[in-house]
């Protein structure tokens, strides 16, 4: 079975620019997660989708971050405008169901560097 796909794998932008990341979850997985992993830290949940709808976005900095999951499959995460502190790896994960949420499969991540 194909895993979670993410693109691009690497991105370098200047501060105040915009950037978007794409995620394609495992086929049939209704739940999708975006995590931010800052160097030296563990991943932190940004947003969780169940099909098209948002389940939890309490830790998403909504003034600059946005995410959507049209048609309940692929998802994009956008940052506009980017700040230096947004430099991190952005991980996408998916799971078959909402509960239990621990059966999550992670993608390879997108490494963002903001200069």
């Amino acid at each position, binding site marked *: 079975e194909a895993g979670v796909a993410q693109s691009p794998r690497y991105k370098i932008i200047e501060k105040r620019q915009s950037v978007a990341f794409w995620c394609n979850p495992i086929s049939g997985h209704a739940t999708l997660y975006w995590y931010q992993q800052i160097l030296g*830290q*563990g991943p932190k949940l940004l947003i969780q989708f169940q099909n098209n709808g948002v389940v939890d976005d309490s830790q998403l900095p909504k003034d600059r971050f946005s995410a959507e999951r049209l048609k309940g499959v692929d998802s994009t995460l956008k940052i506009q405008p980017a700040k230096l502190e947004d430099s991190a790896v952005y991980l996408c994960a998916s799971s078959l169901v909402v509960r239990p*949420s*621990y059966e999550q499969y*992670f993608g*390879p991540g997108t490494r963002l560097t903001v200069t």
Partner: protein
Amino acid sequence: AQTVTQSQPEMSVQEAETVTLSCTYDTSENNYYLFWYKQPPSRQMILVIRQEAYKQQNATENRFSVNFQKAAKSFSLKISDSQLGDTAMYFCAFMKQGGNQFYFGTGTSLTVIP
């Protein structure tokens, strides 16, 4: 709030030897899950082992086993017969029962030396 602490930023082990990675956590929950995830240099997180808090028996998965001490809020990972492919960052994580969010520690970078 839940916190997970990994006090060993880096560790190394000789190939074929045994190594133990430490993890402590803090929670007021009684029902929860604990995990060890492996993140190789390619950065894809892989679940190594899971422990349900209500189970007294320690989880094992082939060469990987845990020492779960609920009262002490300790959850260590033992890797036996270490292999070069075990070189990775290891994250300890917590999720409360019915929750949707992992709480990860800061990770331990393990290097297996040939």
